[in-house]
């Protein structure tokens, strides 16, 4: 229906090839490397926009589908396709990447702080800039494939392979402890991925035993498997289903991250450059939450339902825990990292509440959190790079010397605390309502998170931006043009999606309904539904004016 043009493959290939080109550019041509990277990400954004425009929300569930046999022996196909959920996440990725490239413009030009914490000496490696942006593009390509894969094996491959460029990005650029952080990131996620590998293998065997792939073979085709699950053709042994679910979930819970598998995230985000930190939280981690929604729920609906209360509980703990820890941090980036843990709690809670509000809210949350965290982290990054410290106590009174920086930081902070009118509010509220309608207590406890969110954001703002101008702060310049270009679109998106999230919800809702029917869950009904007699009135009022 979308013609035969392999849009998604092209979208995957473009950054990949772009990354290779950037890496291959002659040493010393730093600016050229940056410009190329920027051009590639912008082109990718254009592609994403085209695909979004061509996507018809009322059409087939998966669109732009393509499938080529890849590894026949394992029944693997290069199968891509997007539903509303995948599409908006791809759009998020494509939209954030140019911003990140621009925000990281100088991050790889200077030599990095050595592991022993000494001030950087000498010049940066001649190709460090190339490497940095090439790796970023690689990650983008892999993230796009992960969101678009309808073959579990393909998803898995890119889910795992993504770790490597991320690892080099974290370990190669950033703070003094970056190599520790990079190793921790990699090992944590690799462990999750390997456990998932066992589950993937098991799933293949199960599908093979049910002859889903034909001729005694198994299959990794998500659509085929989920159909078979829905029709009962694939009736898994409950114990096996639970085990496989846990195997998948373990990987995603680490990636997302869900409490108590979160401890890699603060280290990573603290040590990585702001751009890379955004890459981790805004996109790479979203693959984890996306995969819960896409794979855990669709393939293992029964196990998902069995474990939902447990996971919701962990998510709620994560919400409160992350928020409390954020309050207790003394490092700006670490603080932001813990806020993300809290937010991931919301997303996961929404997913496992298994209500339409929860699912749509969680999906929207992924988008909004991407933008709000990007804003918060990038601006914090600008601030940190100016002062040369990320300790909160080293700041104070920035508002006086850099009002625009402080103002945008406040907006980003307000988005983080889900101020109504800004984008994250809509998603957070949907998640909370969706959770509350199925798990009241969880909903209540999670709502406490909004108070704590106010606390950590405002404490951060107060300590850094207000009060008398601290020594060392007075030289801080306000945002320059490049930085404004970075921040402005983020602010705009946060505002627009806050009052008009409809375009995204329209795309997401049909996909969510599919998922809901797959897990055979329906929304709890209101105890006192408003009698239909009231409807005409309401309709009249709604239709009356424009």
């Amino acid at each position: 229906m979308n013609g035969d043009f392999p849009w998604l493959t092209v979208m995957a290939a473009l950054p990949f090839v772009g990354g290779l080109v950037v890496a291959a550019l002659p040493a010393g041509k730093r600016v050229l490397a940056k410009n190329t990277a920027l051009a590639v990400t912008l082109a990718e954004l254009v592609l994403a926009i085209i695909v979004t425009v061509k996507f018809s929300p009322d059409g087939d569930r998966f669109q732009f589908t393509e499938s080529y046999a890849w590894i026949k022996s394992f029944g693997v196909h290069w199968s891509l396709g997007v539903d509303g959920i995948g599409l908006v996440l791809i759009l998020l990725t494509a939209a954030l990447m140019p911003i990140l490239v621009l925000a990281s413009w100088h991050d790889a030009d200077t030599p990095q702080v050595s592991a022993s914490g000494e001030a950087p000496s000498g010049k940066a490696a001649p190709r460090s800039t190339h490497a940095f942006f090439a790796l970023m593009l690689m990650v983008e390509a892999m993230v796009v494939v992960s969101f678009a894969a309808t073959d579990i094996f393909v998803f898995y491959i890119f889910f795992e392979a993504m770790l490597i460029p991320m690892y080099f990005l974290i370990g190669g650029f950033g703070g003094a402890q970056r190599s520790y952080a990079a190793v921790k990131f990699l090992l944590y996620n690799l462990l999750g991925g390997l456990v998932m590998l066992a589950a993937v293998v098991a799933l293949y065997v199960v599908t093979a035993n049910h002859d889903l792939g034909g001729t005694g073979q198994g299959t990794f085709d998500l659509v085929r498997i989920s159909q078979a699950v829905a029709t009962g053709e694939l009736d898994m042994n409950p114990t096996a289903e639970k085990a496989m679910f846990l195997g998948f979930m373990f990987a995603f819970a680490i990636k997302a991250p869900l409490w108590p598998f979160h401890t890699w995230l603060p280290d990573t985000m603290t040590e990585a450059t702001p751009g890379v930190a955004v890459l981790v939280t805004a996109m790479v981690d979203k693959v984890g939450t996306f995969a819960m929604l896409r794979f855990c729920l669709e393939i293992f609906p029964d196990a998902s339902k069995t474990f939902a209360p447990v996971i919701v509980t962990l998510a709620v703990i994560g919400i409160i825990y992350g928020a409390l820890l954020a309050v207790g941090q003394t490092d700006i980036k670490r603080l932001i990292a813990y806020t993300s843990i809290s937010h991931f709690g919301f997303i996961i809670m929404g997913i496992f509440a298994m209500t339409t509000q929860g699912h749509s809210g969680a999906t929207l949350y992924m988008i909004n959190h991407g933008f709000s965290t990007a804003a918060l982290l990038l601006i914090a990054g600008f601030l940190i790079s100016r002062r040369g410290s990320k300790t909160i106590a080293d700041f104070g009174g920035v508002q006086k010397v850099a009002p625009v920086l402080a103002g945008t930081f406040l907006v980003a902070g307000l988005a983080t605390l889900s101020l109504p009118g800004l984008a994250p509010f809509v998603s957070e509220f949907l998640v909370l309502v969706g959770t509350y309608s199925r798990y009241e207590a969880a909903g209540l406890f999670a709502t406490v998170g909004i108070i704590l969110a106010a606390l950590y954001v405002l404490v951060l703002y107060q300590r850094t931006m207000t009060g008398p101008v601290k020594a060392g702060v007075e030289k801080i310049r306000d945002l320059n043009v490049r930085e404004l270009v970075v921040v402005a679109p983020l602010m705009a998106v946060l505002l627009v999606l806050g009052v008009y999230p409809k375009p995204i919800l329209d795309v997401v809702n049909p996909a969510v309904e599919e998922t809901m029917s797959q897990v055979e869950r329906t929304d709890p009904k209101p105890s006192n539904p408003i009698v239909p007699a009231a409807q005409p009135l309401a309709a009249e009022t709604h239709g009356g004016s424009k």
Partner: protein
Amino acid sequence: MTQTSVSSVYLASTEGGAGMHSVAASGVFSATWLVIGLPLLGAAVLLLGGRRTNRFGHWLGTLFALGSFAVAAALFAAMLGESGADRSIDQHLWNWVAVGDFQAEIGLHLDQLSMVFVLLITGVGSLIHIYSIGYMEHDENRRRFFAYLNLFLASMLLLVLANNYLLLYVGWEGVGLASYLLIGFWQHKPSAATAAKKAFIMNRVGDFGLAVAIFLMFTAFGTFSFDEVLGGSAAASDGTMTAIGLMLLLAACGKSAQFPLQAWLGDAMEGPTPVSALIHAATMVTAGVYLITRSAEIFNASPDAQLVVTIVGAITVLFGAIVGCAKDDIKKALAASTMSQIGYMILAAGLGPIGYAFAIMHLVTHGFFKAGLFLGAGSVMHGMNDEVDMRRYGGLRKYMPVTFVTFGLGYLAIIGFPLLSGFFSKDKIIEAAFAKGGTTGYVLGSVTLVAAALTAYYMTRVMLMTFFGRERWKEAPVGAPADWHEPHPHESPVSMTLPMIVLAFGSVFAGGLFVLNDAFVNWLTPVTGFSHGELPFSVWVVTGMATAMVALGVAVAYVQYARREVPAVAPQGSLVTVAARKDLYQDSINEGLVMRPGQYLTRLLVWLDGRGIDGFVGGLAAFIGGTSSRVRKVQTGFVRSYALSMFGGTAVVVAATLMARMA
């Protein structure tokens, strides 16, 4: 006194169900959105325009406020031209969030109740914009100040015009944000920044209530629009309604600084005085009253919730009044008074249909006189080098006559001097409290009476310490800084006095106008419903008692502060005085019950996260590493030990193979 039949509470409420008979906006009413749109645009222009708009920013902001007021006035005129159900207008703007049953729209609802608020907000708001032009003249960030004021107006208007609870929530937090920005406007002062943060966070506690209330509505009714929730509330279970009611009350407590979430209001006086006047006296803090009144049907359906509302109101009335008696800071004294006065309103709103209209009436009159008082206080500070300690005032009536007169009129209004605004509105609440009936009625009535006396006492105290007595500001204070110099009190410029005069008029006449033909009550009845309570005794008895209490309060204050010298340093005072000075230990209690434990918990968790969870992971890694470094020693380097391990291995493999067969 009223034509409305003394019908049952429920009948009245069903008749006047909020928005039950709304019509779609057309004609003039299709401009309703402009009321919000204008100040919002103003805020946007001023914030995005940056320094370029510095020169004319304040004018622009004022213009947008006035424009909004003009639209509001036009709407009011148009509404007067309509009758009955046609006064309830809905304007659908666009669909906001639609997911399954969750259907939220951006839509406005204009009826008599919101009209009152819109007029109050835009009217007082415009006056305070004008006042601020002069007051903030020397502030380098004046433009930003006006931007925030505009933002506040827009949010507050959204709050009162929203046609569903979720959109109301947007306005609700929007005003919180504006309040935060304005309290902390002088961010370089750590105290201001702290106060702003405190206000926002305590408000968030209230917001928690509002959020949960919406969850409850959604799970009970599948909707949260005023129309449907309020229409369906009579049918829902008591438990649900009580839960929703209590959650709404929690929200109201946060926003309106009611017990137990009252602690932020005093600190909020760190903000510039116009802010205190507009936000923390006239409008925002009354949002809780609006919320309860708007949700009348919910509370009507739950007497338990209503009882709690009245209790909260009663406690706060006294709390504020007691604290107000001991404050030396003029703004804090007024703030405590605000708290107390809003306690009156909440109490009245908790009384149900016999009180809603009076709650709103007191809200409006209070809006006039309290704004006037604050502006007066601002004018005094303006002339006194921003001194706020009343012990450093005295005899100022000669130096700032206009301020003195307008402040004095406001003073008379608030203490309930006969025939001034406060007299009517407060009297009605006292009546309604007694009319509640039974022991409850007597207790509430007595509370309101005692509070009336206290009000008279502390306001007289303020008045005397500020405008009468010796000119204490001429002497250097104890421990004055070396560069201390004597202030030169002077009257404020016209831009400041003019709003004060206008408000003084309101303070004097509004109450009278409202009770004329019961105009105000009749206006609101279609929305809030009204039932006339049965007083246990004559109306005149109440009026008499109230007036006597006021006289008593004034007399005591006169004896204490006019007949005796006001000491420059506050005397030790009784235990009660000390407690009142410390806001009845509200901060210590919050600190002891919430902050400290919270800090300990946070510290514990930070420790646990590092040592516990991460420690476990690290421990696992260390364990594997340790195992590794131990096990590698098995590789001794001696070929014979290798051979031994092979031999042993062979033995094990052979034995295991044999045993596998046996097993």
